[in-house]
Structures are given as structure tokens and as C-alpha cells.
């Protein structure tokens, strides 16, 4: 009976822990939908980070790619990403392998992928020219009525079935709904240990991100508006990319527990060295971090009056974490406004979106297993290169390998869709033809 009363109403209070993309998206959508429904809400976002400070103080540690699907979805939502936030519009990517490189252009010759810094820039930035992406989203949430509490949450308890948040210097605040968007790189998990929730956090692995200051002109000359991805035969490395931004190039390495040895092997490869000016010291980074990424989904990321969104709940495997944050934040917002706040409401209306991402990730694992096989086989690498290069020359509509690679590396399409495209008879015929030519040619 009590669950039927778990609804948002005029004056209801929502506490959002974490003001990264998931927390801000959730706040934006909840407040937008509440306005449409004529509900007057109070919403506090707890975020101690200062998005005007360079380096770790204002950064949420991520490669900073906004996929083309997300750019389009946000534009449709009325959330445009201005050039003051996007450091570089990406219109192509270049795939580098030991057997050669191939450039793949976006079909419409349009810059539809955004490269951003999550904060205002790396720790040694001298002049802040671009605003923080996370700060931009937060300002949109503030514009819709969200209050920012620049405090770290120190304790969470329950009072009359509702959650109560205590921050270091503020007084305890009680909320009808708690949205948890802390990500997985904070110590926030301990806050939930004594709350007797069915929630269990996702398992994680360590990645590596570093920044090199090249300056605007060198970035333009050497990297251009292309994301440079690497398919190298290095054990434990699933994916690596150099992403051009304003004055910096971000190197992003994903795989199984990326460590110093693997970083040195990658930076020492000719394919990577060739992307930098001659004699460039690839052992000195202007900024670096080793954030953890989720490899599985959280167990039951919801209960009565509480929902976990973003990386701490369910996210996409390796790619498009911000896109996944957008999707689950929207699903959570829709649930609390139109359905209710009970665990049952979340199970019925929020969990299906998470489950779709979870199922898609299991297909993604198969795709990355195949990618690993290609990384290990020189013949396969040659075949992929040959097939992609031929498609790019043809300039026709049948860019089967190009679109598969594009969507795999940019995270622009669900893994299921990519996988189905690889089963198309024409794709398989061309791939086997190129494999045969690579073997005997």
C-alpha cells in the first residue's frame, strides 16, 4: 500500500549525489518533465568539484568523446553543444595498424562527434580557452532550477522511510527521492554499505588517459579533425586512441588492467610515435589519470526512493559512457515523473533500459573478442585494411566494413546492430575475399 504513495508531488524534494553528466542529465530531464506536468519540485545536486579549476579538481576523468548519436539526440532535446565547450569537432577517424593506415570519413562530411575535456583542461593548462563539458551540463541544470551544494556527502541515513543526506558543513537534508550518480571513481560506495540495499556495484578495470600539449597548430597539422585509433598486437590492450582537442592530444587506452609496462609498449610503437612530432618525448605527460571503468552492470541499481544512474549503475562497454548516462538518466527521470518512486516502478520502467544496455554489452564482448583476433592475425589485419581502403575509394553507399569499424570505435550504434551488419552475406563475402587475397596475395 505504501508503494502506491511513492509519487512526486508539488514540493517534493530530490537529492542528486554527483554532478557529472548522469546527475546533470537526470536533473535537466526531471525538471523539464515536472514543468510540463505542472509539478513544482525542489532539487539539490551534491557536487564538490569545481568545474572552473583545471586538472583533477574539475575533471571527471574520461576520454571525452561525445558520440554522433548523442550529439544528435541532445540537439533534438534542445541541448546544443557550443564551440566554447567542444574543443574539436571530429569528422573522420584514421585506423592505424602495423600493416598500414586507413582514413574513414563520416558519410555526410559533417563534424558530428565532439571531443571535450570534462573539466576546463589538464592540470598544467596556462590559459583556459574552453569551458568544462560537465560544467556546461551543470549550468543547464541550474538554469532549470537545480541547486548546487558544493559539498561532499559524508553520510546517508533513513528517516521515516526517506533518505537523509549529511554533508560536512551543512545541516541534514531529507529527500523523497535520491538519485545516485557518483560514478565509480569516488569513495562514495561506502555511503551505502549500512543502508541494507539490494544494490551491488559493478566490477571494474583500470584504464589510462594522458594529455600531451602540442598547441593548436600542431594538433591541426598532425592529427587534424580525426580520431586516431590503433589496432596493435599488444596483449591486454582492447582499444587505444589519440583524440585531438584544443591545444592537447588525449591518449586513451582501454583493456585489461592497463599498467606501466603496457603503456610503455604502446607509446613505444612506431604507429604511435608517427602521430607525434619527431623526437617527441612520449614518456612525459602534461596530465594523466588511471580511472576505472565498469566491466559489468550493478546488481539492482534501484530500490524504494533510490536509483543509481550512470557508471555506478549500468553503462556501455568501453564506449559512449556519456551516451549511456544520457539514456539511463532519461529513463530514470521518466519513471519518477510519470510512474513513481518505488522499487517496483523502477523495475518495470527503468530497468528495461538498463537491461537493453546490459544485453548489448554481452554482444559487444563478442565484437571485441573478434577485434582481438584481428589484432593478433596479420592476415586479418591486412584484409580489414584492404577492404576498408577499397570502400573509401569507391565512395559508394555500400561501406560495410567502414561503418562497422566506425560504429565500433565511436560507439555510435548499439553493438547488436553492428554485429548483425557483420552477418550480412555481402559483408562476409567481401571479407573472405580479402582474407584470401591477403593470404595468397
Amino acid at each position, binding site marked *: 500500500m505504501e508503494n502506491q504513495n511513492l509519487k512526486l508531488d508539488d514540493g517534493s524534494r530530490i537529492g542528486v549525489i554527483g554532478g557529472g553528466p548522469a546527475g546533470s542529465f537526470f536533473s535537466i*530531464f526531471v525538471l*523539464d*518533465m515536472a514543468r*510540463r506536468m505542472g509539478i513544482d519540485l525542489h532539487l539539490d545536486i551534491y557536487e564538490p568539484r569545481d568545474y572552473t579549476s583545471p586538472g583533477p579538481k574539475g575533471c571527471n576523468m574520461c576520454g571525452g568523446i561525445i558520440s554522433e*548519436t548523442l*550529439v*544528435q*539526440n541532445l*540537439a*533534438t*532535446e*534542445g541541448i*546544443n*553543444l*557550443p*564551440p*566554447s*565547450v*567542444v*574543443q*574539436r*569537432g571530429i569528422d573522420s577517424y584514421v585506423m592505424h595498424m602495423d600493416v598500414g593506415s586507413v582514413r574513414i570519413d563520416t558519410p*555526410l*562530411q*559533417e*563534424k*558530428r562527434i*565532439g*571531443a*571535450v575535456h570534462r573539466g576546463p583542461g589538464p592540470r598544467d593548462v596556462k590559459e583556459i*580557452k*574552453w569551458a568544462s563539458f560537465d560544467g556546461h551540463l551543470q549550468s543547464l541544470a541550474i538554469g532549470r532550477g537545480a541547486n548546487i551544494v558544493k559539498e561532499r556527502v559524508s553520510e546517508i541515513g533513513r528517516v521515516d522511510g526517506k533518505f537523509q543526506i549529511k554533508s560536512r558543513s551543512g545541516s541534514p537534508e531529507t529527500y523523497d527521492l535520491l538519485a545516485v550518480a557518483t560514478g565509480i571513481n569516488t569513495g562514495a560506495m561506502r555511503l551505502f554499505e549500512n543502508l541494507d540495499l539490494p544494490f551491488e556495484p559493478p566490477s571494474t578495470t583500470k584504464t589510462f588517459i594522458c594529455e600531451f600539449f602540442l598547441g*593548436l597548430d600542431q594538433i*591541426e597539422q598532425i592529427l587534424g*579533425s580525426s580520431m586516431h585509433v590503433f589496432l596493435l598486437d599488444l596483449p591486454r590492450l582492447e582499444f587505444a586512441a589519440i583524440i585531438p582537442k*584544443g591545444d592537447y592530444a588525449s591518449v586513451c587506452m582501454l583493456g585489461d588492467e592497463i599498467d606501466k609496462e603496457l603503456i610503455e609498449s604502446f607509446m613505444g610503437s612506431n604507429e604511435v610515435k608517427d602521430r607525434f612530432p619527431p623526437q617527441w618525448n612520449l614518456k612525459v605527460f602534461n596530465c594523466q589519470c588511471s580511472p576505472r571503468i565498469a566491466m559489468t552492470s550493478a546488481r539492482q541499481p534501484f530500490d524504494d526512493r533510490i536509483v543509481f544512474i550512470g557508471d555506478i549503475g549500468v553503462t556501455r562497454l568501453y564506449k559512449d559512457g556519456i551516451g549511456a548516462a544520457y*539514456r539511463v538518466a*532519461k*529513463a530514470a527521470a*521518466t519513471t519518477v515523473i510519470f510512474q513513481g518512486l518505488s522499487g517496483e516502478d523502477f523495475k518495470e520502467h527503468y530497468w528495461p*533500459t538498463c537491461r*537493453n544496455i546490459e544485453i548489448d554489452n554481452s554482444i559487444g564482448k563478442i565484437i571485441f573478442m573478434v577485434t582481438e583476433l584481428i589484432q593478433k592475425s596479420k592476415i586479418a589485419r591486412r584484409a580489414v585494411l584492404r577492404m576498408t581502403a577499397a570502400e573509401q575509394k569507391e565512395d559508394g553507399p555500400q561501406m560495410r566494413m567502414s561503418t562497422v569499424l566506425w560504429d565500433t570505435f565511436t560507439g555510435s550504434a548499439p553493438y547488436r546492430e553492428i554485429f548483425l551488419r557483420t552477418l550480412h552475406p555481402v559483408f562476409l563475402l567481401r571479407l573472405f575475399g580479402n582474407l584470401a587475397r591477403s593470404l595468397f596475395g
Partner: protein
Amino acid sequence: MDTGALGKVYQNGEVIVRQGEVGDCMFVIQEGEVEIIAEMEDCEVRLAVRKEGDFFGEMAIFERDVRMATVRALGEVRVLTVDKKNFLRRIHEDPSLAFRLVETMSSRIRELSEEVAQHKETREQIEEPDPCDDQIE
């Protein structure tokens, strides 16, 4: 700073969408303005001007028909393409994505209704002259 400009830039007078062409996408204006023009047999009629944040070409998302108007850049303009396939897939997953589109289309219907009412009123005045005018003559 413009390295981060998303979308595609069109120069003044450049055609973004041509009347009669088959469309499979809509557009969101990121910066600048466009004019929407109906091309008649011997003249052009400007139907509307759209500015930053507005979208155009949305009928192609819902109808299998040709573009009903031409869209041209008014000065330099930057627009982002939204693919029909991606958009419809997302609406299927999250119908609330269509809220803003519906709100905008509703407001455009309101504007059009007002224009039609004004045109009708003007036409009626022309067809039925004021009887007082005859008396003066």
C-alpha cells in the same frame, strides 16, 4: 575556438534543402539563420525564418514524401543533421524525445492558424466592400 563547431557550415544563399527532393533527415540550427522558401512557377515566397536552436525539415522524419520547401542559408549558418533512422529508433525507446518536436510543431500550427485567419479576414474585406463606401460615392 571554432575547431569545436559541430555540424556543417553553409554560406549565405547556399541551399541546404531543396524543394521536391526526397529527405531522410531533419536539421537543427547550431548557429545563424535560414529562410524557408516555397518555390512557385514564376516566383518565390518566403514562408519563415528559423534561427539558432530551431529545427527544420522535420516532416521528412514522419512522412514519406518530398521536401515541400527549399531552405537557404541567411548569412553564414551552421546546421547539424539528425538521421531519420537514429531519431525514430530513439523515439521508439524513449517517446519523450519527441516532446520538444511536438511542442514546436504545435506552436507552428498555432502561428499558421493565426496567419490563415488574418488572410481570410483580409480576403473577406476585399470581396465585400464596406457599404458605407458606396454611400460616400
